[in-house]
């Protein structure tokens, strides 16, 4: 895809994040969409392309009053929205539509009007994983961690430092769910969920949503918001079964999507001013730093523990507080994208001064899928 041909011109989260018992999942979609339209200065009738995950496009389009000429329902978990951005950029470039709305919403905590998601007993997951007592993502996503730690010499303290650093970022963000500072000892003394991960290394469970509006870069200059250009994109999938990953030492989906986006953007790692790596659990930033090529996997734990990703560090990472401390409704990718857009607009609560390039890397399922978007505010 060509660089900087498409831009984000509208971006917003739901009015409330966290616990929102007075809104159904569908209304959270609408609330985010209406906020993003307001941000862009558009009306719903200006939207001719639509993408979402879990809910079907016709559900959300009908609810909002959209008549689309292009829809995408890629639903591969939390990075679906990164992939929607990639597909939307391609669709706009070839003229399938001109103005795309992407929405995410999840009543993850309050469970109101939530679309059911289950595993059939005759699916491969139902036959070859479910009978062994896997339940929530916390019982599946951490399964590769011990192997990763042994292979690369990552310590429990280093893994705990991921949560500590992200809480430090969250402390700067008024919208973050958890803001009180924590220490490595706090993390290592918190309640065990799925050894080796404790509760402070697992994502929050919250309600919320977010929406993005994209259009061509040529049109973007006429909007009142500062355009945030799509510089590079990547996507891939691997397996719905965490047990069947090629290796636990890395994510194949990460290793395809991330480098693809870097090549498309024509940038190197030293050009990156701001980084988001979807952190459903504390080990994901380690996999991300290694698989995206920022450093060898052996160095990822030390890099974070040494403070390189904390406020003032050389590689600001998960600056909203991440899924561990900001919010995590179930499919967190939209919130990572929102933070990248805020950083590129210069409007983030913990703004990185003079940031020009933001890499936003997502995971879907339990390392099942991946999407990477590289944003810039320079054309």
């Amino acid at each position, binding site marked *: 895809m060509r660089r900087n041909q498409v831009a984000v011109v509208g971006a917003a989260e739901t009015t409330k994040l966290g616990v929102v018992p007075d809104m159904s999942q569908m209304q959270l979609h609408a609330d985010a969409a209406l906020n993003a339209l307001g941000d862009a200065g558009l009306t719903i009738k200006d939207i001719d392309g639509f993408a979402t995950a879990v809910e079907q496009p016709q559900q959300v389009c009908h609810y909002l009053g959209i008549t689309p000429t292009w829809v995408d329902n890629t639903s591969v978990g939390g990075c679906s929205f990164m992939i929607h951005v990639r597909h939307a950029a391609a669709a706009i470039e070839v003229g399938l539509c001109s103005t795309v709305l992407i929405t995410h919403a999840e009543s993850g905590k309050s469970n109101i009007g939530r679309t059911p998601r289950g595993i*059939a*007993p*005759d699916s*491969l997951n*139902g*036959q*070859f*994983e*479910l*009978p*062994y*007592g*896997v*339940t*929530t993502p*916390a*019982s*599946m996503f*951490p*399964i*590769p*961690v*011990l*192997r990763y730690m*042994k292979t690369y010499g990552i310590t429990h303290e280093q893994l705990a430092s991921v949560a500590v650093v992200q809480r430090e970022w969250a402390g700067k963000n008024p919208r973050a769910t958890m803001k009180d500072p924590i220490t490595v000892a706090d993390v290592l003394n918190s*309640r*065990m*969920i*799925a*050894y*080796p*991960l404790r509760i402070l290394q697992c994502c929050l469970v919250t309600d919320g949503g977010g929406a993005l509006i994209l259009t061509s870069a040529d049109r973007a200059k006429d909007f009142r918001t500062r355009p945030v250009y799509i510089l590079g994109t990547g996507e891939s999938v691997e397996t719905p*079964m*965490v*047990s*069947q990953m090629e290796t*636990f030492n890395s994510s194949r989906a990460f290793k395809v999507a991330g480098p693809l986006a870097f090549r498309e953007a024509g940038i190197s790692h030293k050009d990156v001013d701001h980084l988001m790596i979807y952190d459903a659990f504390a080990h994901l930033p380690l996999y991300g730093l290694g698989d995206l090529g920022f450093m060898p996997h052996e160095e990822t734990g030390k890099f974070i523990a040494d403070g390189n990703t904390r406020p003032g560090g050389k590689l600001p990472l998960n600056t909203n507080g991440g899924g561990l401390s900001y919010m995590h409704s179930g499919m967190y990718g939209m919130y990572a994208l929102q933070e990248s857009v805020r950083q590129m607009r210069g409007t983030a609560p913990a703004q990185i001064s003079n940031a020009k390039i933001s890499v936003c890397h997502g995971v879907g399922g339990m390392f099942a899928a991946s999407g990477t978007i590289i944003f810039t505010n320079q054309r």
Partner: protein
Amino acid sequence: MAEPQRARPKATPETRHFWDGVDAGELRLQRCNKCAKAYFPPRPFCPGCGHREVTVFKASGRGFLYSYIIHHRPAPGFTPPYSIAVVELEEGPRMMTNVVDCPQTPEALQLDMKVQVKFEKIDDKTTLPLFVLAKG
């Protein structure tokens, strides 16, 4: 009211041989007749090369502990804490299982320990391939 129970697998035509094997006390894998890749989970073609001629064979049932968690949250049919493990079989494929008949602790469960399949009948209709630490 009955307690919520452990999830039961339900075979499809493509996986029937595996579950029939477990019922007969055999861990059955498949191997490609063309490229010789051994693979899991079951399917009637090779995921390595796409070849449709494959052979079901009896695996040794031996392998090593590739990775695991110890789950401390409640799950239907389980008493926490319990291990959810991935073992790598001698023949190459990996599979999810539980390592049983040993303390469910990080001290007892060390990566790369040798393991051996143990067929555990969980009710009249269902047997599952669980694993135990290998002796010696």
